[in-house]
């Protein structure tokens, strides 16, 4: 953007490699794009190796191996091995579905640093319902195996209205499984979660009760388990510092090779996100239109432009501004200074209203059939 000094561009530190959009689960809050089924091409093993080399050379060090379900890729071990040789710290972000002990060992030998297992709820019935696949018992077995083989075990539970009242049981489950880290990820409303927002967004009271329980637990397990708490930004009055600032730290590569400044940026119009099949990571990071689009603050409108907090939250999330207001340049409506803040209150009210209805509309599960309709 005009006025932004390119000399100020910092190198990527975090590379999120979305290896595939294929997934045996159907979670209705999935962050993948609604129309994921239209992207059928996947990068080859050699493409991924090239991406890893180029990003590492620039300074990327944390590598997230995600999807979809990354275990679907038969070359996962080969990619992990390559990442280890380059010096990445590699994080496997998985549903654990289909993961067995021999593969846990093979991935360890390849140099995988940690496995993050997601479980949908603390009860089998709800977890299997949300996953759209019978998987709860197997996930718990995998969590034990991850510990057994000396990985740091991160348990991730995405929190929303369907499971938020299970918070005490979720925390007990994390303790029983011996989690080293527990990620309590309040749902962020993009992709499928946006489509299902009326059914997933908890009330403010539910958030407050759940957060208090989680904070008490955090004190109790201090020194034994670390808690990552992803804040529920719809109930905050300042927006999150999304991605630590656009094009400063995070680089996502989608399964088909499209490079994104955040994993939801595919939803934004006219960004013309570049593809690693056409350009190098260095070219993409420094010179592409998409990565420069929201760098610096020249793009900002009021009230962000003259706000003394703009260095702190960078105007919040561009995708959220687009999804809620239809204007990706707007102040994130989460901010109480935003002229569009009423949109957040409307969303909260609509969700509450929906929860009181006798015939609550059904969740839209993330699967190929539903994706084809977008």
């Amino acid at each position, binding site marked *: 953007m005009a006025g932004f000094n390119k000399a100020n561009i910092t190198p990527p530190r975090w590379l999120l490699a979305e290896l595939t959009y294929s997934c045996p689960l159907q979670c209705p809050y999935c962050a993948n794009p609604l129309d994921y089924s239209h992207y059928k091409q996947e990068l080859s093993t050699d493409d991924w190796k090239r991406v890893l080399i180029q990003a590492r050379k620039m*300074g990327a060090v*944390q590598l997230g191996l995600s999807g979809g379900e990354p275990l679907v890729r038969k070359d996962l071990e080969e990619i992990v091995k390559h990442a280890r040789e380059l010096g990445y*710290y590699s*994080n496997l972000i998985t549903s654990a579905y289909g993961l067995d002990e021999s593969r846990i060992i093979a991935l360890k030998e390849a140099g995988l640093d*940690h496995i993050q297992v997601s479980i949908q709820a603390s009860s089998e019935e709800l977890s299997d319902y949300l996953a759209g696949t019978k998987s709860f018992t197997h996930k718990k077995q995998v969590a034990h195996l991850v510990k057994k083989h000396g990985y*740091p075990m991160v348990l991730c539970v995405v929190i929303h209205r369907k499971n938020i009242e299970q918070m005490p049981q979720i925390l007990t489950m994390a303790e029983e499984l011996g989690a080293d880290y527990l990620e309590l990820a309040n749902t962020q409303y993009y992709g499928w979660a946006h489509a299902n927002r009326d059914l997933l967004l908890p009330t403010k009271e539910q958030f407050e009760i759940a957060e208090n329980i989680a904070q008490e637990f955090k004190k109790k397990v201090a*020194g034994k388990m670390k808690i990552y708490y992803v804040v529920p930004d719809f109930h905050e009055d300042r927006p999150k510092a999304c991605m630590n600032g656009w094009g400063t730290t995070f680089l996502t590569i989608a399964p088909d090779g499209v490079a994104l400044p955040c994993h939801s940026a595919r939803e934004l119009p006219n960004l013309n996100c570049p593809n690693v099949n056409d350009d190098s990571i260095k070219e993409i990071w420094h010179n592409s239109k998409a990565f420069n689009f929201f760098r610096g603050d020249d793009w900002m409108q009021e009230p962000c432009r003259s706000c003394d907090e703009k260095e702190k939250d960078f105007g919040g999330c561009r995708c959220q501004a687009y999804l809620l207001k239809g204007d990706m340049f707007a102040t994130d409506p989460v901010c109480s200074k935003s002229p569009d803040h009423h949109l957040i209150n409307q969303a909260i009210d609509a969700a509450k209203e929906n929860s009181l209805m006798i015939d609550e509309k059904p969740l839209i599960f993330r699967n190929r059939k539903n994706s084809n309709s977008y």
Partner: protein
Amino acid sequence: MSLNHNLNLKFSSMHRLQWEEAQQKEVILYPEGMVELNQSSAEILKLCDGSRQLAQIVDELEHKFQTTGLEKDIINFLEDALKNGWIQQS
């Protein structure tokens, strides 16, 4: 847990200590996170290999940097490191 001066100190197997060329710094890597270290912190942690106790670490660093009076700073750092789970005592 507090620092026990008579136990051996070892860098945690749940973390990785690594030189980052791009940053010209030693860093600690762990699930989804990274801490950048200054030179003295990195020197202390590199000596936490399971074969040394506090007194030996102080001796070696004072010798290496030709100085004295490092003990208090080293203790402060190691207590933080223990609290953060970067090192273990055995």
